[in-house]
């Protein structure tokens, strides 16, 4: 697999580390409801098909990325920096 890093270009997957599901949103730091934290940590959809996920270009620019990947075909539909708005 290869991932097109918006900073470094298309690179081998070995340079990246998977960083979890990007479709869940981290609760605000002031959130005190334990259920919401448990949902954020453990509740996953595990979809077949399109999936938004975090990858870090760990052995490259170290950017965290949001990658939209098809879990069946590994087709990568979009990539953007995690700290910027996506498509």
């Amino acid at each position: 697999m290869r991932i097109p890093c918006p900073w470094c270009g298309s690179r081998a997957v070995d340079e990246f580390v998977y960083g979890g599901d990007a479709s869940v949103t981290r609760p605000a730091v002031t959130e005190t409801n334990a259920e919401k934290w448990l949902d954020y940590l453990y509740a996953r959809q595990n979809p077949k098909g399109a999936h938004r996920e975090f990858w870090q270009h760990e052995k490259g620019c170290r950017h965290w990325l949001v990658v939209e990947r098809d879990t069946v075909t590994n087709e990568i539909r979009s990539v953007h920096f995690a700290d910027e708005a996506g498509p």
Partner: protein
Amino acid sequence: MRRISGRGDVNRAQPLHFTFDGRQMFGCEGDTVASALLANGVSLVGRSFKYHRPRGIYSAGPEEPNALVSIGEGEHRTPNLQATTVRLRDGMIVESQNRWPSLAFDIQSANQLLGPFLSAGFYYKTFMGPVKGAWMAYEKLIRRAAGLGNPPVGPSSDEFETIHDYCDVLVVGGGLAGLAAAVDAAKEGSRVLLTERDERLGGMALATPAASLEREAFSSLSEQLDEMPNVRVLKRSTVFGAYDHGVFGLVENTDTGKNLRVVHANRSIMATGAYEQPIVFPGNDLPGVMLASAARTYLNRYGVLCGQDIVIYSTNDSAFDVAVDLAERAASVTVLDTRVVVDPFDENRLHDAGVDLYLGARVTRATGARRVSGVDAQGMGFSGVLPCDCLCVSGGWSPVVHLTSHNGTKPVWSDSNNAFLPGDLDGVPWSAVGAANGDYRPVPDARKVTGPGWRTPIKPAEPLRHAKAFVDLQNDVTSKDVAQAHSEGFSAVEHLKRYTTLGMGTDQGKLSNIPGLSLMAEIAGKSIPETGITTFRPPFTPVPLGALAGEEVGEDFHHWRRSPLAVVHEEDGAVMTVSGLWQRAWYYKENGATVDDAYIREMEIVRSHAALCDVSTLGKIDIEGPDATEFLNLIYTNGFNTLPVGKARWGIMLRDDGYILDDGTTSRIAEHRYFMTTTTANAGRVFSSMESLLQTSWTDLEVSVTPVTDQWAAMVLAGPESRAVLRKVVDGREVNDESIPFLAVRDRVIAGCPVQILRVSFSGELSYEIYTKAGEGPKVWRAIRSAGAGLFGLEALGALRIEKGHVAGNELDGRTTLSDLGLEKVASSKKPFVGSVLMHRPGLSEPGRFQLVGLESETHLPLGTGSVLAIDGFEGAGDGRVTSATWSPELNRHIALALLKDGRSRHGSVVTVLNPARGIVTKARVRDPHFLDPAGDRMHV
């Protein structure tokens, strides 16, 4: 069956000596082991997997199911190599497999007589059935009786390397189709990588005679290719896997070993060719039975004639070329064709070549003992026995669709091709060309009338349910087994494979999948596409584990990290040890001959004088930005917003789930700048977690984090005399409790080098951490040494902190909480922080959890790390565990930190300590973990 003159490309002027089962033999340069064995008159090369039947050489390539041999001797012997793909080398030692006591007389061939009992599912039914323990009893016997070669006992002598390779166009296969594709792609200006399994390009053209149309086409393409600087050719290289996004795995054979190449290609062209398929009939596994194309290859490429009286049993036109070539040299050639009509052109040329052709024929069995000696055949106008010493079969052609299927694309059945072709490769920048795509003849013979030609049905000549008609030669699966699988309900192809083992093994059914599923289709009364095909997965051919490991073996298994102070450890006579990836100074020879002597002496020096220890391995992170304070306040459980510039604070971080992530000290260097240290073990984890939070969640915080572990050398100067030592070396500034108070961070100069001094204590003594530029570390270290500091290593460092009751990596193992370690007070209740909500989950503080305690041995026996604790009797996993243990010179006894069930309420009681690994059972008294100076007077002087 000997080498004949005037044929073949091998170099007869260059004879190569080799042995087969100890017999001296000669081959030629250019031979494979198989062609050399055939040239030496060897027809029997191995015994079969299950029935120990005599087997010979069946093919001339990587589809070979039978001719598996061991090569080499001693610990460098490699088993299960295909004689048909290994290039012969001078001095090679070749041995047959799965025979005892000898190949010619194999005692276990009596298994053949047990044939009726060893049918599909025999093992499951017999040994996994009602008699419990039967498998346990018989496994050893069966494992010895069945199987292939023995594994090597030592490390491989091959050299392995991993290489990343890049190209615009990857062409897999150097036959005519591949060469033509490479030339076309190169003309467009692409960087082309052409790979070929064989040591020579040409593919099936090499099986044709010297003056053939194919050879002409090959010469012309080779010449064009040679002129193209943008084409690279890798021979002796097999692509074994196709992965997503144009990534391919390839094993390249070199003269000294094997390279694993990971090829990244923008586009790829599969020119992988096709395999000629066998025909299933009783006795089809006898030595002397082989694929027709293989006999042609041995003749035209290697100059070896596989028989004198040759029968060719075929279903398609490809065998006619074979017959014509063989007829030039063999005494007699007879073609038995299953079809009732063939192209008149072919009939004429066979007649001209002196070949007898029988149409509408079928072979009912091949006969012979250790080699085929005749066939029973019948057909239009004849019936009888044909004596022969070689039986060539051609059951049609099946494209090599393995690689195009590795991404999950199923091959599709083509009625017009009578074969499975690569599936829909939409969305993948791949294409398949030539025989791999069902176009078998790159250079059509213009004289031929167009007809089905090579594309003939690959179904068996007739439904067979015979115990000696082999569908899978490598796994000894017969047509009777397939019929039995159907009658027992295992008719889906994936079930058929697993129930009978058809298509398993080192050849992965390259010659058995198609006959097997077409036989199943026949028996089940279905079409082949309805029956389907099993899934192809990497690897296409076996990949040695050594090639996958590459250079990452032995001491290169992982990289080593050396402290910037490594050079002084050498000077100081340190004994080094491995801690994670780091090489660390364990103890110093000047303090004792063994680690046990030395670390106790080193602890005494720290407790009564002053000594230096290298702590450069600590994780170090630079944190800068207007929101740095707020950031730290969010990731540490304790407050950081009141920390003044020039001061440091010890803190703990949790994970989101409420468990402890790490501890460390962070100093405020300037208003918006901090210097964080983490434990050695968790440095990477802490930094990654910080990056993740800042880039994925708290994106509005203006903070920049930079790992600076390698930029700093760090050392600890500890002991009651450490201030006096420091005073001698610090340039031009006072060193006292006022100028550097506890938890202060100060910029100073030592030996002309700027340093950052941090007054913290891990050992419980008056102590300073001194940070300096990595390159200046040795200079600063030597200066402090010269001022009278002793030395202590990792072992003493650990022992000192155990005496002090400080937790470290062994206690912060990802399973402990603040309350487990008695550190609830470190969590602020006035602010949110990572883990602040879930740390209050009831399960993380409920009774019965293991809590940190100190243990004092009640005996002279040590309390080994990892020992299990028992409060009353020993039950289950015990009531706790020893996390860190040492001898304490201070208490003059063995002590330990431990996690004990409800430990804080058990102070004063005695527990049993079991160390089964060291055979120690002892008693220890539970106590507070702070063995030494609980008030902290020593470090606050």
